[in-house]
C-alpha cells in the first residue's frame, strides 16, 4: 500500500493508505478530522471543501495519495485560536466570525465547505461584487439559507480583511 505524508491543520501524519481511499475519507475516518463533512458523491455540493496548499479543493474529488506531501487546512484549523467557546463568543477567522454575525448558516452542514470556499474566493478577489460572490460560490450548495446572508457575510469579511470594516 502506498504511504502518504500530509500536514493537516499543522500536524504531520504519515501512514499507509489504500490507493483508492478518497482524501475526504482519509481526513474523516483515518485522521478523525470530522469537521469536514460529505454531502454528495458527484462533487457537486462543496461540503467537503478544504484548502490544499492554500487553494480550495473538494476533498471528495481527490485520492489521499494525491495529497502526499501537501499541507491541508480544514475548517478545524482555519484559525489556530478558533476554539468553540461555550457561550459562543465570536472566535476565529474573519469569515467564520462574519458567518455567525450575519446568520449565514442554519443547520451548518454546508458551512465548513462554504467558509473554506469563501476564504479562497477572497484570497483571489479581495473586493468582490455580490454577483462575483454568488458566482464564486456556485460550487457550494446550501439548502437552508437561500444564500442572501452568506453573500452579506462574505462582503463583511472581505471588508474586514481589506482593513475597511463595512
Amino acid at each position, binding site marked *: 500500500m502506498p504511504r502518504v505524508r500530509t500536514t493537516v491543520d499543522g500536524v504531520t501524519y504519515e501512514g499507509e493508505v*489504500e490507493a483508492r*481511499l478518497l482524501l475526504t*475519507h482519509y481526513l*474523516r*475516518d483515518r485522521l*478523525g*478530522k*470530522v*469537521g469536514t*463533512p*460529505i*454531502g*454528495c*458523491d*458527484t462533487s*457537486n*455540493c462543496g*461540503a467537503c471543501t478544504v484548502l490544499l496548499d492554500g487553494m480550495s479543493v473538494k476533498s471528495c474529488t481527490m485520492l489521499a495519495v494525491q495529497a502526499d506531501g501537501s499541507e491541508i487546512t*480544514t*475548517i*478545524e484549523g*482555519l484559525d489556530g485560536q*478558533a*476554539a*468553540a*467557546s461555550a*457561550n*459562543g*463568543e*465570536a*472566535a*476565529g477567522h474573519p469569515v*467564520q466570525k462574519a*458567518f*455567525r454575525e450575519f*446568520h449565514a*448558516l*442554519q*443547520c*451548518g*452542514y*454546508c458551512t*465548513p465547505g462554504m*467558509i473554506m470556499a469563501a476564504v479562497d474566493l477572497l484570497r483571489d478577489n479581495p473586493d468582490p461584487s455580490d454577483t462575483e460572490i*454568488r*458566482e464564486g*460560490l*456556485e460550487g*457550494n*450548495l*446550501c*439548502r*437552508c*439559507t*437561500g*444564500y*442572501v*446572508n*452568506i*453573500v452579506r457575510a462574505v462582503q463583511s469579511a472581505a471588508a474586514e480583511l481589506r482593513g475597511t470594516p463595512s
Partner: protein
Amino acid sequence: MTTAPEVGRDRRRKEDARLITGRTNWTDNIQLPGMLYVAFLRSPMAHARIRNVDVSGVLGQDGVVAAYTGADLAAEQGSLPCAWPVTEDIVIPDHPPMAVDEVRYVGEAVACVVATDRYVAADMLELIEIDYEPLPPVLDMEAALAEGASLVHSDKGTNASFTWPFSAGDVDAAFGDDAVVVSRRYVQQRLIPAAMEPRSVVVAPEGDGYTMWSATQIPHVLRLMLAMVTGIAEHQLRVVAPDVGGGFGSKLQVTAEEVITLLLAKRLRKPVKWTEGRTEGIQTTHHGRDQIQKVALAADRDGRFRGLKIELLADMGAYLMLVTPGVPLLGAFMFPAIYKFDAYSFTCTGVFTTKMPTDAYRGAGRPEATYAIERLVDEMAVELRMDPMELRRRNWIKHEEFPYTTIATLTYDTGNYEAATEKALQLFGYDKLRAEQADRRERGDAVQLGIGISTFTEMCGLAPSRILGQLAYGAGGWESASVRMLPTGKVEVVTGSSAHGQGHETAWSQIAADQLGVPFEDVTVLHGDTRVSPKGMDTYGSRSLAVGGTALVQACDRVVDKAKRIAAHMLEASEEDIEFEGGTFRVRGTPEPATTIQEVALATFAAHDLPEGVEASLDSDATFDPENFSYPHGTHLCAAEVDTETGMVKLRSYVAVDDVGVVINPLIVEGQVHGGLAQGIAQALYEEAVYDSEGNLLTSTLADYLIPSAADLPEFVTDRTETPSTTNPLGVKGVGEAGTIASTPAVVNAVVDAIRQFGVNDVPMPCSPEHVWRAIQEAGGEPATTLGRGPGR
C-alpha cells in the same frame, strides 16, 4: 435589576460556535470500538418478483461479518409504519424494510452486507446474486386508476389507497349558471427534499438495550415506532438526534435503514453504522409533492368568490410511510386560504405507483393548496378583467372580521392582510413595475416583465391533539418542556422538540431568560436525546415555537411559582405580597428586602430552611396541547423577466412581507424566510424528480437534480407585520414553511403574467427555459394583441 427583554432581540446563535469551527457532532462522525458498516443492495427494477437472492458468495470474504436477505430477516423486521390511516377503508400494504418477495421501486433494499470497513461492505454488493422476474411498472396516476391497470400490490386489487372527501355549503348553487367559472389542471411535480446532510444511523448495543444515533427530526416518535415495529421494548431503546444537517420533512420518517441497522446491532452484538450516499439518498429518502390538481373557482361577475372545487390525485409511491396519506389532507383545509366562500368541496384519492414513496416536504400539503388557489385567483382576474390584487382585496377576510371561521371549518384567530399587502406594495413599487410591463409589451421587447402576487396563509403549530384524533392521526400534537434550576442559578432547559438548523438553543434561551429573569448566557438548552428529554413530539410543521415554546413558558411559570413560596419564606412575607420582576422577588411596593431567583435556587438546594411542606426543588415540567393552529400569513410579490426567445426566466425582484406573529429572534426569522423562499422558488423554476418509462429515477445525482446555487437566486427583500396570535401566550405563529408555501405561486404567477399576451395561461412547473419556450410556441408564439414586434426580431 431590570434588563431589556430578550424576546425580540437579534441574538447571534449559540449553536454557531461549534458549527463554524467544525466541532460538530454529525451522526456519520461517530466512531465506536469494533464498529461495523452496513451497505444495502438495492433494486435496479421498478417492479419485479424476486425469484432468488443468494448472499453465499459474500460470506467468508475478507472483512465480511454477515450478509442477509429480506427473507433472512422476515421474521423480525416487521412492517414500516404508517401513522395516519386517513379513512376507515384505507389500503395500507405491508412494507417490509427489506423486500422479501417483490420490489416496487428502484432503490428498494433487497439485501445487506455487514463488514469491518465501509469500502469493503460496498464492494461486496457485487457478489450478491439476485434473480428478478420483471413486472409492469406503474408510473402514471391517471392510468393507474383506469380499468385493467397493472397493480402495484396485486393482492390489494386496486391502485387506490383511499379517497377522502370534504364538502361544505351548496357547491352546485355556487357553480350555477350565473357564475363565472375558471377551471384548471395543475401538476405539482415530484420533488427531492435533499437536506445537505445525508441520512446516517449508528446503533450500539448497550447493556440490555440499544442506543441509536440517527440524522432524524423525530427521535421521540422514532423510538416509539422502532419499539412497535421490532418488538424491542421501548425502555430499552434510546434514540439520539445529534447535530442534524437539515430535514425539511425528509427526516420526519421511520426508515428501512434505521430498522435494519438496529436489527443488525441486535444480531451481531456490535455497533453498526450506515450512511447513505447522495444517489442512494435521492432514490430512497422519501420524496415530496406529486399531485394532479383539478381545480375550479366560481365567482360573481363583480368578482365576489362563491365556490371552490378541488379534486386531487396524490402519488403515494409504492408504500405508505409515516404520514404519506396525511400530507394532502393538511392541504385540504388550506385551499380556501385567506378568502371567503359560500361553498367548498374537496376530494383526494391517494394512488400507488412504482416510485419512491412521498411524504412530508417543507409545507406538506399547504404549498400545493396555496399554489392552486393563488394561481386560480390570477386566472379569475384575467377572466374578469380585473387587477389581481383588487380581486384578492374584494375577497379576503378583513382584519376586523377575525376570528373568522373559514368554509373549511378552521378558525383563523388573527390576521391583517391589508397591512401586510400595503407594506409589500410599497417595498415592491407595484405601480412602477406595472408601467414598465406595459411599456415592454408596447415595444414588443424580447424580454417581457411579469408580476406575480401571492397573498397566502398557512396553518402552523401542529397540532391540537383533539383535531388530530378527528383526522385519524395516530398520535397527539402536544409538546413538552422541563426547566431545571441548578444550585448556582444556571438553568437547563429541556425541550421535546428536536432542532436541525432552526436555532432552538438560542430562541429557547431567550424565552427562558425573560421568563426567569436570568441572563441569556446562563441558559443551556438540551434536546434530541430520549434519555435527556424523555417526552417529545419533535420538530415539523412549524410547530416548535408555537407548541414547544409555549410549554417552556408554562414550565418557567411553574418554576417561578415554586420559587415565590420559598422567596416569601426567606423574606418573611406572605406569598400574596411577593412580586417577581426581572429575576428578583420583593415585597410588593418596597425596594427592599429582595432576593434573586439565583439566591432562591441555592437556598432550595441547601434546603436548610424551607417552608413547611415545600419540596427541595424548583424544577418544573409542562406539556402544552394547543387549542387551535396558528395562521401566519403574508404578501409576496415577484417581478420576473422572461426572455421570450429563449424561455429563460430571471427574477428581477422579490418582496416578502410576512406576519408570523410575535418574533422571538428577528435574525432567525429572516433566515427561515430566506431559506423557505429558496425552496419555493426552486419548485417554481428548477427542481423536478423525473422517472423514465421504465421507472428509473433519471435525476438521481445533484448534477441532474438542480438544487439552486447562490448564482441561481436573487437577493430577497423581506419585512414583517406583526399581528400576535391569540392561541398561545407568546403570540407566535411559526415561520419554518411560510417562505416555501408563498413563493412558488408568486413566481409562476409572474412568469405567466409576463407571457400572457401570447395567449399563455399556464406554464407547467418547473418553469424551465424549455417549458416556458414551449408554452409560448404552443400558444402560437405571437402576442395576442395587435402590438406586434419590432423589425429584426
